[in-house]
């Protein structure tokens, strides 16, 4: 049936290809996940990495940030983290006798929020405002964030003791949830042999893609053609999530919009300027698992059953 490993063609924009190669060098053996991350990037969505520690979440996020030469910030979420630790704060300068704004980590292009479910809901919501509105309000002053502001949040599914699970409304702000998973044997072998070499500079120099180029790509993504029949297919799928018996809360219109945009990005990554049903299906699991409130634990199988219940549009 649906396979996430269905790789889009690796041609595409030259710069995009460079970026893809670079990420693949950093995170070995995870091409399919990297495609999803790229799709999320093109769709201007935020990414939730949901996996065990030590699988390369942070490595991936850092590599993405460095690829653009973008400003990268990282927040390690702990229970005592305060909203101002994320947004920034005004400090009274004794010398100048004026308040000075100290920008928080959100004033960056790429923000890595590690273990986001460890911090308090108050802090979480501060971050979510930034994610949704791309602006923060501090002491009544709204401050706009970078236009390519991109959040990669990670959370640890085990060890839920003392954690604050993200509420559904907030999960809806993420475009997708990706589980990186263990690399296969060959990739592990490559990882091990890479580590045995002489200690070199871990990071690669230079950028693959400028922020301006990224913005242009994002703009192009939003213009990828979606046929009305594809849209109807998408609507049917969304309706099915709302009526499915093992789903408590179906896809919201916002979720639907994001799904379409991610499918557009997927088409763009496949070097197409139109969306086909396979694009919708390919991104269904990462897009849906983040926002469906399933009554059963295994929400992926629910997504599978929904996908298999709706007929793809016929060629006309």
């Amino acid at each position, binding site marked *: *049936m*649906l*396979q996430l490993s*269905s790789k889009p063609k690796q041609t595409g924009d030259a710069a995009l290809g460079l970026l893809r190669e670079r990420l693949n060098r950093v995170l070995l053996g995870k091409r399919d996940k990297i495609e999803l991350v790229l799709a999320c990037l093109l769709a201007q969505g935020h990414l939730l990495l949901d996996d*065990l520690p030590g699988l390369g979440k942070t490595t991936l996020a850092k590599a993405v940030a460095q690829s653009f030469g973008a400003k990268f910030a990282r927040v390690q979420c702990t229970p005592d983290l305060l909203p101002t630790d994320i947004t920034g704060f005004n400090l009274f300068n004794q010398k100048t006798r004026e308040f000075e704004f100290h920008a928080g980590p959100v004033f960056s292009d790429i923000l890595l929020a590690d273990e986001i479910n460890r911090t308090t809901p108050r802090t979480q919501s501060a971050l979510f405002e930034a994610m949704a509105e791309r602006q923060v309000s501090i002491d009544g002053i709204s401050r706009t964030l970078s236009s390519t502001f991109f959040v990669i949040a990670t959370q640890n*599914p*085990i060890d839920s003791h003392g954690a604050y699970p993200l509420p559904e409304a907030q999960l809806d702000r993420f475009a997708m949830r990706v*589980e990186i*998973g263990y690399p296969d044997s060959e990739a592990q072998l490559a990882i091990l042999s890479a580590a045995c070499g002489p200690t070199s500079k871990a990071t690669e120099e230079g950028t693959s893609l400028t922020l301006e180029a990224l913005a242009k790509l994002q703009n192009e993504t939003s213009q990828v*053609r*979606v*046929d009305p*029949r*594809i849209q109807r297919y998408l609507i049917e799928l969304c309706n099915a999530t709302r009526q499915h018996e093992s789903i408590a809360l179906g896809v919201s219109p916002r979720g639907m919009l994001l799904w379409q945009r991610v499918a557009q990005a997927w088409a763009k990554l496949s070097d*197409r*300027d*139109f*969306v*086909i*049903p*396979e694009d919708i*299906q390919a991104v269904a699991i990462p897009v849906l698992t983040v926002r469906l409130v399933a009554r059963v*634990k*295994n929400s*992926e*199988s629910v997504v*599978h059953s929904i*996908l*298999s*219940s*709706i*007929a*793809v*549009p*016929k*060629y*006309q």
Partner: protein
Amino acid sequence: MRASRLSLDRRRSGAIVLAVISIAALVRLRSTCESLGVIAIETALHAALVGATGWIFAISKRSGTRGLTTSQRSVSEGDRSGKATITRNPQTFLLIGGTVCVLFPIVANFLARQAGGGTGEEIAYLGALAWGGLVAALFAQLNRTLSISVVCSGFLTLFTTVSSDHHQAVYIAFLWGMVCLWWLIANHWERVEACQIDSVKSTNMRTPLAIIAGGLVFVIAAWTASGRSVMFSRPSLELVQTSGGSGRYDAAARSGVGNGDAVVAARDHAASFGAVDTDVFLDSPMPSLFDIFNDQFGEPVRKKKTERAIALAPRDTRSTSSRTAQSNSSTQSFTTRRSEPKPRQPLKDVRSNATMFWIGRVGERLATERYTRFDGTEWHQELQENKPTFGELKIGERVWFSTDANSGLATGPYADSVAEAVKFTRFRSNRIPTPAGVQMWHIDLVDKADFFGFTGDHCLEMPGRDHVPDYTTVRLVSRLIDREKLEALTSASTGAAIAPASSEPELPSDRGVQLAKQIAREWLPNSSSRWADVQLLVERLRSEFAFDRSGSTSLAKASNAEPGADPETESDTALDEGASTPLETFLMTRRGNDVMFATAAAVMLRELGFPTRLVTGFYVDPNSYDRMAGQTPITAADAHAWLEVNIGADTWIPLEPTPGYRTPTYRTTWLYLIKRNASMIAGTVVGLLSGACLLWLSRAYLFECLLRIASYFPPVVSDRRRVRFVVGVLDRRCRFAGIARPRSISPREWLLRNLALDRTPWSGSLNRFFNEADQLNYGGGGGLSAEGRKACKEIWREASTFYLRRLRPHKSTAWQTNKTNETVSVHATTEF
């Protein structure tokens, strides 16, 4: 607007049911005088026409308006181009389709009448009304249209009920009434309840005026229709066919207007077969079976020739004289004014060269003479002393005459009876032609047994007369021969009963007879005197000998046809110089008339041990059957000869040895037919089933063959159709190969990934095809490139069912591993 549309749809169903009931009533009415097959075909055609109208209407509606109402649409379309309005406007289609539906019965009937078939015009008008009602109900867009439909179906139902003779007709009217009542209550009850007596007010004067005007129209129409108005006393225009009222005669005219004023005798029996069953010709100078015993009205009409007649009471006659006007006014005297005599329309004779008319089975043989002795050239009657006897039987008010219960009819191979009738017009014999197995007969008011009798050769006659009086209708009931009983009676066990009777006349031993006997022995060397042998012999005669009507037509002529004496038989004699009798000539040349056939068969069957006799009479030719009248005219040309064979128990069974004439029909039960043809039926069923199985099993091969053939004739179609076709073919092939594509997986995904066709040498074509197909479908159009078309063809040829079949095991394993992987990974994530 919305509410009224809803209620319209709710009411529509009721109106459709009513219209369908009325159509059923019309079909029932027609089924009494038309063949059901024709009605069924016509109804099916008509239903198809209505269906097509609905379909076109639905399509045009769907393709036309979207969001706009029809009128708005047509206006805006009209601004752009007139053509678009016409092609897109559903109302136009509806109007055209509806008109065609309504006019169809009239046009079809007109054409059918031109071709010699058809029915009365009034039926066509009723048909137009019925289908008009249905169309109005189906496509009504106003409540008023629905009401019109209900009125149409109501009128039709009432009309057919009233004009029908059948009791069951009234049940259809009841049904219609019940449905209509339900429909009315469902639609109008709320309104009725809302109208309290005190709230009803006359708002204007128009209603009473309308009532008065309507009443006037009704009265005038009734006056005109009742024939009291001078203007319309004589119909000048014939809207529906009459049988002579306007001077014209039409075969399609039903019971109703007769041949003018005088011939309305069929007053108790609307579907009377004869012009008269009783007394109309009392004032005719021709001899009649009936006479009036009446001394009140002066001299009766003097007949030119009188015969025995039954005296009728005066109440059985009808007064045809007109009443004289009287005046009892103050003048105290009789008026001298007399009513003017009614202008009597001169009656026209309806000419026909038929000697009689037969209502009953066609292909029947009516016997008038029977011959038992054959002297080599001629047949002779041997009048027997033991004539059949008969008795009287009173059924209803009529007297029937019936043969004795202990005659062969009771013990013979008979089952069921059939009622038939014969009307004599110019028959010049006192014998009544009857079919074999006649059991009962009756002539209207004749209640005297000595009016009938049997001749020495067992034929029914009216003794002491020159001929049966003209326009006499004889009704007959005859028994049907049952094939099963016939075969049981002549089976081997009772075969001894058919041994030649002692009274069997001896055959002469001339050469013709000897030859016939020889042929019979050749054909049936070991005959066992069974029915099958009789059938076999007759069949051989029918198939190996040729019928030649131009040969000598009468028995007398046949007997005179001496060789050399008649120049007409030169050819016969040329063939065989030594032929001495016509029978021998017939047997040598294998050509002859029906008398020769019957003679040969009779002689041969006697050789086999069956008593036989030659019968002459009339053959009811199926070709001259008048479908409109439901009767068959019998002319002198229908004179015929055949033979009867005695199978014992005083039972004579007619046989038809002459080719070109229908063999006598025997009544057979379904069970018997099935038993007889069990092996054939079983063979056919098994053959059909195995054929169907074979087709089913080889459906993939057939499909591939068709495709392979079709691939040499590439269709010139649009690219979209081409893509659709190829995808459809691939889907069908997958289904044949047992790896049907689930609907939720796109073709590309299924073929390339799930079936792993991306490893094939032509996967490039597959990829290209799907890329271009996607571009065409979802990428905003374009078309297939030359390579794309080539890819189409390549897929068409390469991805055959057989190729896909080889993938089946592969597919299942790949599929399984995929699934397991998935579930394992899911499991892992959820378990933590």
